[in-house]
């Protein structure tokens, strides 16, 4: 796997919903081949940062580069695991059907998944420990299993950079362990894994580096250097009222008091 020195770069990225900025001036460089955590309180803009990298929300300013290139040039090398609640799990498809979706973009128009894609899907399901539920309807899985189906779909994309949005939310301990193992294997294969994560306890055990986010980048770097009491206090201590107020003023086209 070829990865350039920088896997993911945000250059002065600002994201706004409507006109209101929710993520301010993020300047962040993530090296290649590591487990990278995006950590922060609820509403800090963690998922928004991920979606900005994937082009799912428009940038109000700044630039994102993945593997040294703009997103459009490397889309095929990027895998995405959305939040589990973002889809309807009653949708009439089987586990294998969902994993095969990971091969669709590569297949292109008019081509159907064939034996090669099927064996790839089976292999990915095996990697996440779901080989025995391959033919089950997705609604009949536990939360942890559903999350692993999403991971298997991303594996089937055979990407070099993976983005995961809260993959451990509502997931049992066994699934969590399994997911972290698969992600560590990806890193060992030279891939970059970026994870939006909320559980501080597991950060030191699994992650190489993190970014602490609360509407702006608070700190980034290796886990041991970043997770200091001072940085955590700055991240979790409470909202920066000034950003909230300015954001509202920008949205309304007015002026702050």
């Amino acid at each position: 796997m070829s990865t350039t020195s920088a896997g993911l770069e945000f250059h002065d990225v600002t994201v706004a919903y409507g006109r209101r900025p929710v993520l301010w001036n993020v300047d962040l460089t993530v090296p290649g081949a590591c487990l990278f955590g995006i950590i922060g309180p609820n509403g800090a803009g963690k998922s928004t940062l991920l979606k900005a990298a994937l082009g799912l929300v428009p940038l109000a300013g700044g630039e994102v580069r993945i593997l040294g290139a703009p997103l459009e040039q490397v889309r095929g090398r990027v895998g995405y695991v959305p939040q589990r609640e973002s889809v309807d799990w009653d949708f009439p498809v089987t586990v294998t059907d969902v994993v095969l979706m990971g091969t669709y973009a590569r297949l292109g128009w008019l081509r159907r998944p064939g034996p090669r894609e099927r064996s790839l899907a089976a292999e990915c399901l095996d990697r996440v420990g779901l080989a025995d539920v391959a033919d089950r309807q997705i609604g009949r899985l536990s939360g942890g299993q559903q999350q692993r189906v999403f991971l298997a779909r991303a594996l089937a994309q055979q990407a070099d950079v993976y983005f995961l949005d809260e993959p451990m939310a509502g997931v049992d301990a066994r699934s969590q362990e399994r997911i972290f193992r698969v992600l560590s294997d990806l890193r060992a294969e030279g891939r970059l894994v970026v994870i939006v994560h909320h559980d501080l306890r597991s950060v030191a055990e699994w992650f190489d580096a993190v970014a602490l986010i609360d509407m702006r980048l608070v700190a980034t770097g290796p886990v041991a250097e970043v997770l200091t009491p001072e940085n955590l206090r700055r991240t979790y201590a409470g909202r920066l009222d000034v950003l909230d107020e300015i954001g509202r003023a920008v949205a309304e086209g007015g002026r702050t008091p």
Partner: protein
Amino acid sequence: MMEFDSTHLWMHFWAIATAATVSAGCALVGSFLVVRRLSLLGDAISHAVLPGIVLAVLAGGRPGGAGVFLGAVVAALVTVWLTNLLGTHAGLAEDAGAGVAFTTLFAIGVVLVSALASRVDIDPGCVLYGILELVPFDTVPILGLEVPRALLAAATVLVVLVVAAALCWKELVFTAFDPAAARAAGLPVGLVSAGLLVATSLATVASFEAVGAILVVAMLAVPAAAAELLVRRFHRMLLVAVALGVAGSIVGYLAAWHFNTNAAGMIAVVLGIEYLLAALWAPGDGIVARVVSRESLRWRVACEDRLASLWRAEEGDAAALAPRTLLDRLAQARLVFGGRIVPGRAGGLTDIGREEARVIVRSHRLWEAWLGRHVALPLDHLHPPAEWIEHHLGAEVRGRIAADLEGDEGDPHGRDIPPEEFPRRPAEPPAR
């Protein structure tokens, strides 16, 4: 009822063929709408095409002609576009946006029809309810055959829809299931969604003459919703939806013929009945399946409780409870008939009955002991949960619990936990 001469039969054949074709196209598109939870979009579109039709007729289009068809499709697309506009720019929720857009357009259509009644030959009733029975009278010749214009339009649209669905199958399914991931993977999600809306417009407009603005919603939503209850994979759901739509059209038309009533209305009623039957008989989640599963559990619990009670009586702790409720009595009769309980007033357990009863009592006491060890519960709170869980423990888990309790003799109340298996004794003749 009409007479059975051959001209009439041909008329009915064409009407049924039109209804079935229209229904197949609607079920196809409707399946995508139902899994995307957009069923009411069909409602919106079908109402909103009215002004398009009126304006097209006003511009010189012939009712049922290609120009009017085009006008209707344009009006449908305007609705969709307006809905999106209201959603993204006026900050209206999607359903509210659709509500505003389609009612306004429909109202404009109604106003136009009334105001221009002298210049436009449109019957509002026909627009709302359709007149399937009149479809065979407006024909075009094809290979010497007089084919209804509406059938021709519906068949053309159906072919277009089937081809489009087959070609874009992957993209349609991925986009419907997980639009964000599909977009991140680089699929043209916006284009696919727009395509689905165009397809909905086409299917709706093609159905218009036959079934009208209101009942087309039934054809879009009902067969697909019924199919979703019946099968667990999307391609099968699509086939089942089409089959239900076609079957409902044929049966509905024949029923309307028989009862001499409005065909489109009858078709929608039959589709509704199909849905009801699907909800009742769906495997696993259907109402009947759920009732059967609940009642069979109740029945098993009653039988097992009866056996356990007799076991406890044999143990000498308590007198066997006499069966009181009707369910208890039925269970008693079943157990006597099945050779678990000795017939007669005193009726104790047979050897087989004793084996089964022992397993239940063992499950009960194992669970009490496990709760006593692992859960902070007062002693007198252990019995009710064990009464419940005893019916759900299998041999393997019993073994694991027993291993976990190794060293503890007896349950928390000081009674022995019966062993998993008795050493085989020579069979005794059942005591009479």
